[in-house]
């Protein structure tokens, strides 16, 4: 994508019918570090690659709990991601308060997508940017309405973060992807961010089995998919975060120690399998690092 005369404003169409600013926003998602999600009938697993600025710093938080039954993994401008998470949490908690029951994921996702059409107002003060919060207004007859308060001297831009929304509702476990264009899709499994194509390839091979997978199998597949995006780097629990939500299990981030143990148990199993058989069965995972496709 190259600079052109139609890409300055998000409100300008190109002659080809494209909104370049929106497409550039989607590029921002591709630059972020990878996040993947997959789901079975009863569980959804999210995993992300931890990116740290330097060895001295801690890594950015990319997985957020939105409610007991919903969590998100983000990729892209994490600052936007935090603001959006706050909005999602706000929506969920308001629904819970009024109706004493969890907000269905499908509805939350639609509300978020609609918000992208009327993008978040970002107040720019000097070199810093602040996201704007959402306020609760009580109407005269006692109903609650949500209103976004806009501030003066602001201009709009699409938010630069892609979200994988994992949640449970009456109709089962769901995984959605919300993108800056305001579109949302439901997925069996998906990967976003840099080098996500490698993970997608892995997931495409195995996704048909996911519906019936157990929780442990899902987590294992998530870790393998993350491994694919690492391109040969060693998979350890410090380099990835895994979270799971399921029937009877509220959204939680699995602690590092458990992940490390899982990784080690997979690795020993892999070595045994490679020794045992030269050609893997169709369901075996592909271990050749040089086979990984090119970066996005």
């Amino acid at each position, binding site marked *: 994508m190259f600079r052109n005369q139609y890409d300055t404003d998000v409100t300008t169409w190109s002659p080809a019918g494209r909104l370049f600013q929106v497409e550039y926003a989607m590029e921002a998602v591709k630059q972020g570090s990878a996040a993947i999600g997959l789901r079975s009938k009863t569980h959804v697993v999210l995993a992300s690659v931890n990116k740290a600025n330097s060895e001295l710093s801690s890594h950015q938080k990319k997985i957020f709990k939105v409610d007991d039954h919903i969590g998100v993994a983000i990729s892209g401008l994490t600052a936007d991601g935090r603001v959006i998470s706050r909005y999602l949490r706000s929506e969920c908690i308001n629904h819970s308060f*009024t*109706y*004493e*029951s969890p907000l269905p994921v*499908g509805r939350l996702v*639609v509300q978020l997508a609609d918000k992208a059409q009327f993008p978040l107002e970002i107040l720019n003060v000097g070199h810093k940017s602040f996201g704007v919060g959402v306020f609760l207004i009580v109407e005269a*007859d*006692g109903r*609650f309405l949500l209103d976004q308060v806009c501030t003066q001297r602001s201009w709009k831009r699409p938010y630069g973060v892609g979200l994988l929304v994992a949640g449970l509702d009456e*109709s089962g476990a769901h995984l959605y992807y919300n993108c800056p264009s305001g579109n949302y899709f439901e997925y069996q499994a998906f990967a976003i961010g840099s080098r996500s194509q490698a993970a997608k390839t892995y997931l495409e091979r195995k996704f048909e089995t996911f519906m019936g997978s157990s929780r442990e199998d899902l987590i294992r597949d998530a870790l393998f998919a993350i491994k694919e995006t690492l391109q040969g780097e060693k998979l350890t629990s410090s380099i990835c975060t895994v979270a799971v939500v399921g029937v009877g299990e509220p959204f939680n981030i699995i602690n590092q120690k458990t992940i490390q143990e899982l990784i080690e148990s997979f690795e020993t199993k892999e070595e045994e399998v490679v020794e045992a058989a030269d050609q893997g069965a169709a369901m075996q995972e592909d271990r050749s690092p040089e086979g990984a496709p090119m970066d996005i």
Partner: protein
Amino acid sequence: MNLLDSTPANNSLLNSAMGSERTQYPYVTGTSVIGIKYKDGILMVADMGGSYGSTLRYKSVERLKSIGKHSLLGASGEISDFQEILRYLDELILYDNMWDDGNSLGPKEVHSYLTRVMYNRRNKFNPLWNSLVLGGVKNGQKYLGMVSMIGVHFEDNHVATGFGNHLARPILRDEWNENLSYEDGVKLLEKCMRVLLYRDRSAVNKLQVWFFSLYVSLGLSSGYFASPSQSSSSKWTHE
């Protein structure tokens, strides 16, 4: 904005500008509603009377209404406020249906919503003068709850409003059990309504009985039927 804690001196000015915000008095009222859980779902009964003070003025008031696919609402107290509540719920259910996804508002959600509405109105000194009984079945789960005009809410196996609390609930406490059949449930409720007819001056002998059941022969997973309004017989001789 609403300035509720205005001094009495300013009241008249505010009242005329923004409509009355003082506690109202009910005009046309309905009397007790009784609801019970039975083996297959929920049974609710209310008479069809609307009293205008001490006059039994209206004899065909429907005080039980179905809400959405899963719930039944019965109200005692001011009839016009009940109609207002039905308008709120209409809008709520409409928006819920407009989502057009697999989710729908169940009795618990409606009950919670009504609690919020009643409590908020009470806080503004402009209550909806009703006691509401909310029952329903969703995903095989039976639900029965009550909300009062000040926002007190709870769930129970049998609930009643107004005089029903004093005259019907003792009967229900003795004779209710989890596995009441439909016939037994209706008989139990009729017994309660007969006592109310004898002793509550605002009761009339025309009843509305609704049941909300898990199983309906039409092959729906849940449904409701209103039996045509029945008149209960009364016996004034000694036993």
